[in-house]
């Protein structure tokens, strides 16, 4: 360890820091005051557009490694789990035969439903090309932008339900804010009894359904769908299912935790509902 014996003049150095601090505060102030169409927002969108090809390359290169980590994690399966899995496999074989019958019937019915649905809402498939770059937000980047008919505020769904909405769209890419992001909010309801509330994301990635009256009976396993209130998301999109319900003694509302349908880590393609109203949620779903 070497100790500096001669004290140096800290003045100019401190001035440099003060300049940067003032600049940062100025930037934050301007960002908040300028609105969505301001120059800083445009620069941020431009940065996303520039970063998108790099994200895409990174996503492509690291995909096999992500698969490897998942495979390595599965190596620790115990003997008991193996026996259980074999038994489960037998049961599933029988179910497959039954489901095959149902699938054929479903295909016929789906063709009819699709034909009807296409009259009201159209959609485009987009590839996931980027994942969150910091731990404080839950967003993904998709490889489709205004050139592909995507606008800010369009709902995005995955194979098993609603994922979020586009918030920042460039020519060939778009940023999607996921439901689990703490700034997300969706008008939602319980499918079984139509009890309405607001579904919110949080910093820890949990989804909560707020403002559901204590008088309504909610059970774990109840399916949660969009209610269509507010007009941002179409009605009836599956969000997930209730995982836990609790009622504090003096609270007006129930505490409802919802397990989302989507596993973002394994997502490779999503569907953007281009036929829905394009309106970015600024209110957190309220």
């Amino acid at each position, binding site marked *: 360890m070497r100790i500096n014996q001669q004290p140096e003049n800290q003045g100019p150095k401190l001035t440099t820091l003060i300049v940067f601090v003032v600049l940062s505060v100025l930037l934050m102030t301007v960002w908040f005051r300028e609105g969505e169409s301001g120059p800083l927002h445009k620069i941020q969108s431009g940065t996303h557009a520039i970063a998108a090809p790099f994200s895409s390359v990174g996503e492509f290169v*690291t995909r096999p490694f992500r698969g490897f980590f998942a495979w390595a994690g599965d190596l620790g399966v115990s003997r008991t789990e193996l026996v259980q899995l074999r038994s489960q496999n037998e049961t599933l074989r029988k179910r497959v035969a039954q489901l095959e019958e149902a699938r054929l019937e479903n295909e016929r019915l789906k063709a009819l439903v699709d034909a009807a649905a296409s009259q009201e809402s159209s959609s485009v498939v987009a590839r996931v090309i980027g994942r969150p770059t910091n731990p404080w937000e839950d967003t993904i980047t998709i490889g489709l932008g205004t050139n592909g008919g995507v606008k800010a505020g369009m709902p995005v769904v995955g194979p098993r339900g609603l994922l979020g909405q586009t918030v920042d769209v460039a020519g060939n890419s778009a940023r999607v804010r996921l439901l689990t992001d703490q700034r997300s909010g969706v008008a939602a309801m319980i499918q079984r009894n139509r009890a309405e509330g607001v579904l919110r994301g949080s910093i820890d990635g949990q989804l909560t359904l707020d403002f559901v009256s204590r008088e309504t009976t909610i059970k774990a396993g109840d399916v949660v769908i969009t209610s269509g209130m507010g007009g941002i998301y179409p009605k009836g999109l599956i969000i997930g299912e209730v995982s836990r319900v609790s009622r504090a003694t003096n609270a007006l509302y129930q505490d409802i935790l919802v397990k989302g349908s989507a596993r973002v880590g394994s997502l490779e393609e999503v569907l953007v509902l281009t036929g829905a109203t394009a309106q970015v949620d600024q209110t957190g779903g309220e």
Partner: protein
Amino acid sequence: MKVLPTVLAVVAAALLQVMLAPSLAIGGIVPNVLFLVVTTLALAEGPVPGASAGFAAGLVYDMLGSGPIGPMALVLAVVGYLAGLLHEQMFAEGWLLPLTVLGVAALGTEMAYGLVLGLIGEGAPFWASLVTRVLPAAVYNTVLALLVYPWLARFLRRDHPMTTFRRLG
């Protein structure tokens, strides 16, 4: 201040933050490569390069996200400056001291970032963010610093070889 290696290090960190860091996420905790570069630069070069690199890297970090521009620029400028002051007070010849500094800086950065977000109305509940974001991110960044710091410090301080990092590096 050596401008070219500093700029190269920040640009490389920005690329890694976009291309590699998202795939290294564990439970939603994405490592902050820009932080690693800023603190290493600050310890190797001093407070003014530390604050300058911190401001630039923080700005890149903010622009890559969807939130407000400025919070991470502010935090990394201050962290870079403070880490740089330690460079002037004592030149680390062992690995334990800079690593401790990096650990404290990692914790300070995440806490300060959460605090700034809270002050401007973009924050999250304190305990939830402390437990699920601040502490895990600080630990993860410190562990990565253990791998990155010796190599990066050598690259940035080629005129003052850090012989005691030989074993670690």
